[in-house]
């Protein structure tokens, strides 16, 4: 039996336009949720409408327990009519929610330099992960690794242009080192964030490194090529269109390695969204 899923409603506290096409929405849940982890996602839809019809999968950007109840925070980008409709919600509006869903990021043991590599809106789950790592360092009972007290977390954030660098406020609070890239050079390194990492990797001790990434498919693909020769572990959070979020619609399939068949489709919602980058297959 799977653990109990949080199915119910949430009330919009605020829905702030933080950059062009980017919003941070916080929801107060009708019931408590105390097991949401970075890398997991929640299906969200405006209550009582048939168009847009389907929920949208949003990765968690933050989870807070308050006196009023559990607050979930989402950083999302408007890409279509579903996210556009979500961006129109204001304080007091009701949403249907289902989650948290999917596999979270795993904290890698014996790796004392973690690099979180985000492209664009991919910053959302990784900023939450940075917060999670920083907060757990302060809890001795959970820092079971010898290395955890000296663990360093570097955040690599890339975007097309400086205006599209999102999540920096949270990232700056929780990361020792931040590296920025933009395609047009309007902030930080000029080029992609993977190119920036490639440059930096030369001077780093690979045996200490653990990589986490989330971003557009071309970025994940170039990252997989970049680290192929190295023994650096890497977990990536993948995004696909999905209808149900619970493994029923089979809409969110991606191609992965399969020991007996060579390859197979697997569902991002239930077998991901976090995958070992070396499991993924590209067309």
């Amino acid at each position, binding site marked *: *039996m*799977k653990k*109990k*899923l949080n*199915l119910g409603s949430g009330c919009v506290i605020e829905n702030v336009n933080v950059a062009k096409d980017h919003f941070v929405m916080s929801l107060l849940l009708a019931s408590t949720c105390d097991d949401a982890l970075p890398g997991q996602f929640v299906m969200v*839809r405006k209550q009582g409408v*048939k*168009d*847009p*019809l*389907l*929920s949208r999968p949003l990765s968690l950007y933050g989870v807070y327990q308050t006196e009023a109840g559990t607050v979930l925070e989402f950083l999302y980008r408007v890409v*279509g*009519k*579903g996210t556009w409709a979500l961006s129109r919600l204001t304080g007091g509006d009701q949403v*249907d929610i*289902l989650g948290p869903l999917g596999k979270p990021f795993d904290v890698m043991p014996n790796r004392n330099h973690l690099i979180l590599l985000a492209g664009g809106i991919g910053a959302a789950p990784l900023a939450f992960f940075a917060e999670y790592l920083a907060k757990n360092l302060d809890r001795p009972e959970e820092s079971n690794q010898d290395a955890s007290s000296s663990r360093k977390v570097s955040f690599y954030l890339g975007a097309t242009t400086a205006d599209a660098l999102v999540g920096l406020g949270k990232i700056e609070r929780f990361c020792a080192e931040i590296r920025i890239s933009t395609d047009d050079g309007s902030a930080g390194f000029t080029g992609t964030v993977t190119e920036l990492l490639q440059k930096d990797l030369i001077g780093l001790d690979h045996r200490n490194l653990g990589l986490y990434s989330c971003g557009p498919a071309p970025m994940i693909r170039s990252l997989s090529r970049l680290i192929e020769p190295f023994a650096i572990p890497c977990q990536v959070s993948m995004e*696909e*269109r*999905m*209808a*149900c979020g*619970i*493994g*029923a*619609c*089979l*809409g*969110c*399939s*991606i*191609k992965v390695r399969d020991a007996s068949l060579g390859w*197979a*489709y697997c569902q991002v919602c239930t077998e991901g969204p976090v995958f070992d980058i070396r499991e993924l297959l590209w*067309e």
Partner: protein
Amino acid sequence: MPDLSVDIGGLKLKNPIMTASGTFGYGEEYASFINLNDLGAIIVKGLSLKPRMGNPPPRIIETASGMLNAIGLQNVGVQAFIEKKMPYLRTLEVPVIANILGENAEEYQQIAELLSRAPGVAALEVNISCPNVSKGGIAFGANPESAMDVVRRVKSVTDLPVIVKLSPNVTDIAMIAEGVESAGANALSLINTITGMSVDIERRIPHLKNITGGLSGPAIKPIALRMVWQVVNRVRIPVIGVGGIMDATDALEFLIVGATAVQIGTANFINPQSTIHVLNGLVAYMEKRHIRDIHELIGTLTC
């Protein structure tokens, strides 16, 4: 509590709420959301003779009040279903209906034979209508002769009630319905998805890798309702209404038009408790109007 029980071609259901194939996995996916035994029946994901990988992504796209899917009938295959999925389903009290699909008439017959020997399968739903795979059901469902051939072959190897799921992508669905009834079908379910497409105008490519897909959701409900109405007026066997049912009002429309039961499909994706909400709404409607038996509702449309 009103009497909601119905008879679908020999299969007794305690209520008329079923799950549409392909929207409810193999049942277990929904076990943490509802008590599966509260359902009238579970219809599982369509089964083929061999496992199917399904279509390359993207496989789904939302459209106005609906969605297009081109999953490509991804499924574990009939053998793995019997070995790996049936043991769980047998622990339930709810009748389990296996939806079957073949690439040729012989395959339908083989799958029907295998499932009829597997304990725990209560009925077969024959998918002659899935529009997604080039070698799939479309050829059977599109003309009465090939549809009747499949039904005869399936009937020749099974004693289970045989429900035939009809495609809406035909000129005259009532003619196909009459054909499969005469071939021995015990019940009909309609409609399957309506073939459609959607285009990304930035990249000028189809949203689905498969180019076309099956439209489902509230967008298709008026069409489904019209087709059920046409068919119930032409056949004597029970008809199961399916297409865009989101709530009890939608389900009631199908029952009043003459459907003996309904299937909930896309709504399961939006709220995994949709089936139970529809059931509760149906009971509330009947209680409010002092309707003691669901048959006092079925087919009571006044035109």
